[in-house]
């Protein structure tokens, strides 16, 4: 295992956190400490209400899944135990709660890998906790800022994306460390809980590999001419078009 003494992880009881932990372990990275936000049956964004399918259809022909597969139904604490990082559990879900802010401030290192519950915006207090927050956005930045952007990029360019950024007060507007596009997977019905998380985990591990190799965080060198577009939660009709449109027509754009 490669210990990361300057890097801690804040995670929540979500499929994304499972993807991160299992992929960090597979890549051999161990954060200095893990802070877990967990509240059983909280039913928050990112949590599944049902047992998820374990793998997408046609997984053997799915390069992204082959690279970053994970068990979405695992026990989060077992994932952490397997990684070997020390951890604390807070019976809270709000990243901006004062006790969470204090817990984050007390984490070792100056960088926090952030994997909280979906839809939460980091407010001034947590952003001033003395850490930089490395977040992997589910979309290619700055083209696809905001919510559920992988469905939009599936429609527009037959791709999904993930971008590692340091969080700032403005949503998805921090400096981009690394960004990747991935072809739309063969099974497009598992984006929410499998492929989006797998894409983010892939980029997270690539960022850590650069950091571990060079001692510096990478810079995606986004040109100032690249235009940012902000998207909001996708309407179900567009989501169905993204998932069920025939590939031949999809590529007509």
């Amino acid at each position, binding site marked *: 295992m490669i210990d990361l003494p300057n890097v801690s992880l804040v995670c929540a009881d979500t499929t994304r956190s499972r993807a991160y932990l299992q992929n960090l372990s597979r890549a051999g990275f161990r954060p200095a400490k893990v802070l877990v936000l967990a509240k059983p049956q909280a039913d928050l*964004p990112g949590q599944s209400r049902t047992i998820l399918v374990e793998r997408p259809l046609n997984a053997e022909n799915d390069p992204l899944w082959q690279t970053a597969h994970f068990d979405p139904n695992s026990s989060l604490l077992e994932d952490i135990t397997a990684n070997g990082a020390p951890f604390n559990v807070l019976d809270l879900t709000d990243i901006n709660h004062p006790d969470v802010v204090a817990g984050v401030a007390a984490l070792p290192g100056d960088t926090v890998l952030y994997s909280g519950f979906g*839809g939460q915006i980091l407010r001034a207090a947590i952003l001033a906790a003395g850490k930089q927050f490395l977040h992997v956005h589910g979309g290619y930045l700055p083209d696809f800022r905001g919510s559920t952007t992988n469905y*939009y990029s599936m*429609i*527009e360019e037959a791709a999904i994306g993930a971008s590692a950024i340091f969080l700032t007060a403005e949503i998805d507007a921090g400096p981009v460390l690394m960004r990747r596009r991935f072809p739309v997977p063969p099974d497009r*019905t598992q984006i*929410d809980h499998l492929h989006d998380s797998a894409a983010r985990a892939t980029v997270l591990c690539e960022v850590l590999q650069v950091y571990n190799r060079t001692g510096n965080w990478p810079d995606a060198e986004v040109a100032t001419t690249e235009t940012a*577009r*902000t*998207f*909001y*939660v*996708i*309407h*179900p*009709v*567009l*989501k*169905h*078009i993204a*998932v*069920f*449109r*025939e590939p031949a*027509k*999809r590529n*007509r754009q």
Partner: protein
Amino acid sequence: MTSYTYADRNLLVENEHYFYSVLQGPPFLNAYRTARAEVLKGLTEGGGRQPPEKCAYPTGTDDIRTADLLNALEWDLDDLWLGKLVQRFEITKRLYPIYDNRLRKHAGEANDVTLYARLACILAAELGHAQDLRWLNTLLKLNDTLCSVTNAQREPVTQMLRFSLTAEDAAIKFWEGSSP
């Protein structure tokens, strides 16, 4: 049988957030088309659009009347202001008659369907110029809201709703890969 459930209750009474919407398979799109066609078929004549009034964009510290901002957008569209108003709607799924000068805090009741219909028409007209998924996404939600209200509530905006539903249909066909 799959049904379109995103406009089957009054969304001005019971909000729809659209988070983690469930995939229902291709029949969902047929159910959507059927639901929209039924609304279109039931629209009475009248409820026409007024020509836009010349109106400047807000500049000072006074509260913003949403109707005035829509006037300005209809007269001379500004993408920045359109984006701000779309953001207000997307966050709350509501349009209030008055906002503060930063378009943050709101006042009044969010039940004036004319405001929703006018924003829908602005986005529909924009889709006639460029197929921007951001505007189509918001147009779908505005049209859900307008399709969900009672016939009496919808009466003043029937012509605007016909225009916005027709534009929505053309844009959906475009993205589905059919001839627009």
